């Protein structure tokens, strides 16, 4: 058996999972199960959100290690499903490795929702959470506008691969500006509920819950990384909103 290729395939699977923000235990377990299925008893897998390292032993008992650095991560639930599905199939059927490598290449570019839909739905999120946090219907419409603003500006910044925190700060500043303008023009009344509703698009609620999951599940480093990231994201959102309010209020 070609251990090098097995390692390539399993690291790739782990990388794909980490890139769509799968949980750490899922990544480690998937890679480990795959290696086990292909007859690799001696293996060690370690993952944190930005890094994955896998070591296996070949038939002469020499260790081979491969690691991969994950730079960009985006939640993509369909991709998690697809990679997970593929991994299960591999563990059950054990097709030859070159075939697997081809299948993995198809998954390289994750399938996303259409861009227009994503931006419009950011508006829906703004609308519903604005109402959720006690805004009136007029506030809800302003929330939708701010949400669309956030969706569009996040996309704009991601195209030019600007620093993540800068992009988050600018998006929330723009959204707060939209909210202030809408209220000044008499479209909405309650700046607070408009802002927090629209900011649900950016706010790292899922990240902090996942970080607690990692900590309780025993992945302490991953949990701490996610916690710090969530705090930094929230800090930059607050900075962005604070900047706008200080400048224009």
């Amino acid at each position, binding site marked *: 058996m070609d251990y090098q290729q097995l390692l390539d395939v399993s690291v790739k699977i782990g990388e794909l999972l980490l890139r769509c923000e799968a949980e750490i235990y899922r990544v480690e377990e998937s890679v480990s199960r795959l290696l086990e299925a292909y007859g690799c008893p001696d293996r060690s897998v370690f993952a944190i959100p930005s890094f994955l390292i896998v070591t296996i032993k070949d038939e002469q008992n020499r260790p081979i290690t491969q690691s991969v650095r994950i730079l960009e991560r985006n939640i993509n*639930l369909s991709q998690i499903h697809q990679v997970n599905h593929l991994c299960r199939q591999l563990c059950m059927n054990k097709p030859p490795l070159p075939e697997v490598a081809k299948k993995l290449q198809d998954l390289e570019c994750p399938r996303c*929702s259409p861009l227009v839909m994503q931006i419009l739905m950011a*508006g829906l999120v703004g609308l519903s959470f604005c*109402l959720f946090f006690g805004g009136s219907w007029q506030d809800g419409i302003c929330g939708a506008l701010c949400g669309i603003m956030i969706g569009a500006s996040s996309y704009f910044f991601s195209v030019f691969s600007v620093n993540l925190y800068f992009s988050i700060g600018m998006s929330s500043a723009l959204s707060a500006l939209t909210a202030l303008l809408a209220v000044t023009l008499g479209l909405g009344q309650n700046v607070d509920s408009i802002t927090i509703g629209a900011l649900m698009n950016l706010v790292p609620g899922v990240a*902090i819950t996942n970080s607690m999951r990692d900590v309780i599940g025993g992945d302490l480093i991953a949990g701490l990384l996610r916690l710090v990231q969530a705090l930094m994201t929230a800090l930059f959102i607050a900075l962005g*909103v604070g900047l706008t309010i200080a400048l224009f209020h």
Partner: protein
Amino acid sequence: MEWLTVLYAFAGCLGFCFVFHFRGIGCGLLASLDGALGWAVFLALNFLDAEILQYFIATLIISSYAEIMARFTKKPATCYLIIAVLPLVPGGGIYYTMKYCLEGQMALFVQTGFNTLAVAGALAAGILTVVSLTRLLHMLRNRLPKIRNHN
């Protein structure tokens, strides 16, 4: 009036299905329903007057629903779970924490911060309880010869 928020939670979750690239409108609706269910449970338990406990119980219900739907639709439970916890998740809390930090209101910063962590902890504990129980059931049913150590 209060119960209208359940509807808003549903719509919000549906929006997030697209933001998080959850493809397939049927599954998206199921996940959003889960989110609305979680929030409804939270509201229904308001008489307990114990916020953290309410969060914990609501997450137990959400995760069970997610695990069941995962079996039916052959998708990982996480997909449903990530969408469904959104109405409960302390997004506002962490934002206000950092806002108070920037404004220098230290007492409020510490109070909101610890409350946010407690809520996140309650959610995580609820999710992990159901995940562990499901695994246990699964193993007992398959009578796995060896019990692996999941740490």
